[in-house]
């Protein structure tokens, strides 16, 4: 007997609790519509370091260590750290883990990393392999520009369709006990590629993956969109969000009344010049650790479904003309629904 439900979904019988979260964002995110929900807003996006890569690693380190403090735990109490980021060889995460004394697994799911790390953390918790696990991720506008577009030194213009990588890091501590929001279902996504080549149209590239994961989540669990107070995709942006809602409707699931996209929520595109919205691992991470989690604690949201979305290309694959495969993982979180 397994805990698998349907084709891609896992039921968390021990209901791993999210006992604390911590979110840090850069100055631009700190001026956005969700600014009141973040734990720390950095005034300096270099975080006092001499490179943006070091800065990103530093904010990830801070998010992890502060989330431990917030849970009233010590580093020694944490059994595992599951983290990932967007940079080559996951240096932000590995270099942050270098300064910690916690067993570490590095994960790459592009911008889907928050729900990827949270999914795996929940499974390991539900398998009774740990008492406390941290799921975390980070991204940084300037290090991502260097990695995926052009280094800032190059001084290139951003095309109007370009997404704005969120500078930020989110970390969650999972524990076994206490009255906290808890994970009930995890749906692991499949890689979907509908042949989109344009790196400036990632929302459309990732939408099929989000649709597939959402569809299978509803089918596996027997739930419907209205069972959730909020369904939040990671960083599809306006275009990707519209495609997702439309395709799901064709499959018989109408998510339009409670559907948000973290990339759309985090910036005010009109006044902040972010064009097509936020992206990056940090985007769904800080929206989940900040806005969504805090609204669960306050009782506004009782049941949410978070679907971080990732585009799995590399700079090399794009230059070689490969299309952009997408991935999405869904995690259902509940609090105060009477189920615990």
């Amino acid at each position: 007997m397994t805990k698998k439900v349907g084709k891609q979904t896992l039921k968390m019988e021990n209901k791993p609790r999210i006992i604390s979260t911590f979110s840090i964002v850069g100055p631009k995110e700190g001026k956005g519509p969700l600014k009141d929900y973040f734990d720390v807003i950095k005034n300096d996006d270099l975080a006092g370091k001499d490179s943006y890569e070091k800065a990103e690693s530093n904010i990830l380190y801070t998010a992890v260590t502060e989330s431990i403090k917030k849970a009233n735990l010590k580093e020694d109490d944490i059994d595992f750290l599951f983290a990932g980021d967007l940079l080559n060889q996951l240096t932000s995460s590995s270099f942050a883990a270098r300064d910690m004394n916690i067993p570490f697994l590095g994960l790459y799911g592009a911008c889907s990393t928050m729900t990827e790390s949270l999914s795996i953390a929940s499974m390991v918790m539900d398998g009774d392999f740990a008492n406390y696990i941290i799921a975390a991720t980070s991204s940084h506008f300037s290090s991502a520009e260097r990695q995926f577009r052009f280094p800032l030194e190059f001084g290139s213009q951003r095309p109007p369709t370009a997404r704005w990588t969120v500078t930020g890091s989110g970390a969650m501590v999972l524990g076994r006990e206490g009255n906290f929001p808890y994970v009930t279902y995890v749906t692991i996504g499949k890689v979907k590629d509908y042949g989109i080549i344009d790196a400036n149209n990632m929302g459309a590239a990732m939408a099929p993956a989000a649709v597939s994961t959402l569809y299978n989540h509803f089918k596996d669990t027997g739930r419907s969109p209205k069972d959730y107070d909020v369904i939040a995709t990671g960083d599809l942006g306006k275009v990707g969000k519209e495609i997702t809602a439309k395709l799901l409707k064709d499959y018989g699931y109408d998510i339009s009344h409670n559907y948000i996209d973290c990339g759309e929520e985090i910036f005010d595109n009109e006044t902040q010049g972010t064009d097509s919205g936020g992206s990056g691992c940090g985007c769904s991470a800080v929206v989940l650790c900040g806005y969504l989690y805090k609204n669960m604690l306050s009782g506004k949201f009782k049941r949410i479904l978070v679907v971080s979305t990732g585009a799995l290309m590399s700079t090399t694959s794009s230059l070689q003309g490969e299309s952009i495969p997408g991935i999405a993982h869904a995690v259902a979180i509940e609090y105060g629904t009477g189920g615990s």
Partner: protein
Amino acid sequence: MMNDYVSAFIVGGLICVIAQILIDKTKFTPARILVSFVTLGVILGALNIYDVVIRFGKAGATIPLPGFGYTLAKSTIKEVNEKGLIGAFTGGIKGAAGGITAAIFFGYVAALLFDPKTKK
């Protein structure tokens, strides 16, 4: 004198407007646009068409990238005329040496003096 300023402004501005439209409306990367502009300058220079643009636009035509391509073409042709076919390999860079060295030198100085900042 004043006429020169105005025509340089118009011609230089037009060249930049074309580039801006290409950035905004097409999927060409900035690198491709830069290289296309230089190549276009080489072709128009070799066909003596860019000479007309320069006669009217002055520095407005020589300073932007097609002007660099124009210099490459003209100095290659000159070197070939003076030294034979070997000039096809040596002429272009010789003629454009001032521009190339200045780009490297000032680029280096700028890199030493300034740090890039995150875009607003």
